[in-house]
């Protein structure tokens, strides 16, 4: 049993890393990894929201009617996002400014809704909390990797500390929008190569990882398949 709990916690870090393996939450991954500090604060803010919402959703899993569960989850998540952003506004105003609009957008971060849908609604409170911690730290770890690459190569510093011999040899495009796509693409390719193509769960963006699947009931993919069959 203990082993099982540990595996829930560790799963989020590597084997089912939300960013590189499940490919969820792409928007903040690309947007906040320009700097290491921004990435870590985004990761931790999302982790707090994820743990809290997982716990509450798991507590309420028998109360919430199945048909209206997605709106209920969204309200719970939005509540915690508001709490986190108010706390950051009060105590860490610089980070609040740095993250800007992306802090409010944690609400629509696929990882949080996805974990609610895939995990918290079927497991008890303790397991859901562990899953939240694991997934949240996995997300933070992935953001840290991305931002380290982008900041060290792109602006020759790490978390604002200048690296002496890197100055003057920077690839500044990496800190801008195209660099985000490029580094993310290469990271996923590395995961692919290391695991011989078995690693990345979502070869393409299918319904398994899509939190909206709960709402659309897989209609979007069905249409795709039907069309393909018709074409064949």
């Amino acid at each position, binding site marked *: 049993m203990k082993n099982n709990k540990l595996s829930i916690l560790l799963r989020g870090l590597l084997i089912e890393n939300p960013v590189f393996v499940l490919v969820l939450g792409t*928007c903040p991954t690309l947007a906040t990894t320009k700097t290491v500090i921004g990435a870590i604060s985004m990761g931790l803010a999302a982790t707090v929201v994820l743990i809290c919402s997982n716990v509450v959703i798991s507590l309420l899993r028998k109360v919430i009617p199945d048909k209206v569960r997605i709106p209920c989850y*969204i309200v719970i998540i*939005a509540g915690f996002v508001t709490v986190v*952003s108010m706390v950051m506004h009060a105590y860490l105003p610089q980070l609040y400014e740095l993250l800007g609009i992306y802090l409010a957008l944690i*609400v*629509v971060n696929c990882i949080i809704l996805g974990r609610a849908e895939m995990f918290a609604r079927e497991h008890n409170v303790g397991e859901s909390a562990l899953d939240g911690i694991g997934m949240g730290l996995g997300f933070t770890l992935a953001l840290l990797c991305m931002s380290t690459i982008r900041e060290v190569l792109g602006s020759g510093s790490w978390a604002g500390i200048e690296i002496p011999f890197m100055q003057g040899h920077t690839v500044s*495009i990496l800190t801008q929008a195209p660099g985000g*796509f490029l580094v993310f693409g290469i990271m996923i390719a590395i995961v*692919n190569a290391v695991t011989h193509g078995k690693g990345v769960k979502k*070869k393409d963006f299918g319904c398994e990882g899509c939190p909206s699947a709960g709402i659309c009931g897989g209609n979007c993919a069905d249409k795709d398949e039907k069309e393909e069959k018709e074409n064949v």
Partner: protein
Amino acid sequence: MFKTLIVILMSSVLVNNYVLSKFLGICPFLGVSKKLDQACGMGLSVTFVMLVATVATWPIQRFVLDKLGLGYLQTIVFILVIAALVQFIEIVLKKYIPSLHKSLGIYLPLITTNCAVLGVTIQNISDGYNFLESMVSSLGCGLGFLLAMVLFAGVRSRIENCNAPKAFKGLPVTLIAASIVSLSFFGFAGIIENLLG
């Protein structure tokens, strides 16, 4: 006045493109851009929802939340309003315009959790736009999203046929193509200042 609106429109379509420079709405951008008609459908639906969402959220922020000092409830209220609106639009379309529902209906539920729609409504408020400017900015963001989707659908149909290295097959090569498309939008930087400044 008119010039300000043009500047807002052009800059949100080309320079501050929501997908390619602000990274909002990446999921539909990568997920639904495989075929041109689907990309168009998704782009049009997003534009439509952005406009409707702005019509609903701007007055709520100005006349309800600001008046009552409830600004901190912005996130919760906006996401609920957007979710309810999308459901409502879907029901209305299904009942009265079935043909449109058939082509756009499948994209509507996906838009509820699209960060671009929530992003544009919050951004309009935090930029301090008035109602008309907000509408123009939403239209611009929607059109920018549509433009990016359509362009990328074209790029992707070529990628499908190319022989990428094994590790890069699928998602990675798509992301790298997105990086190059995003790079090409850098060419628009400064276009506003030069044309209208």
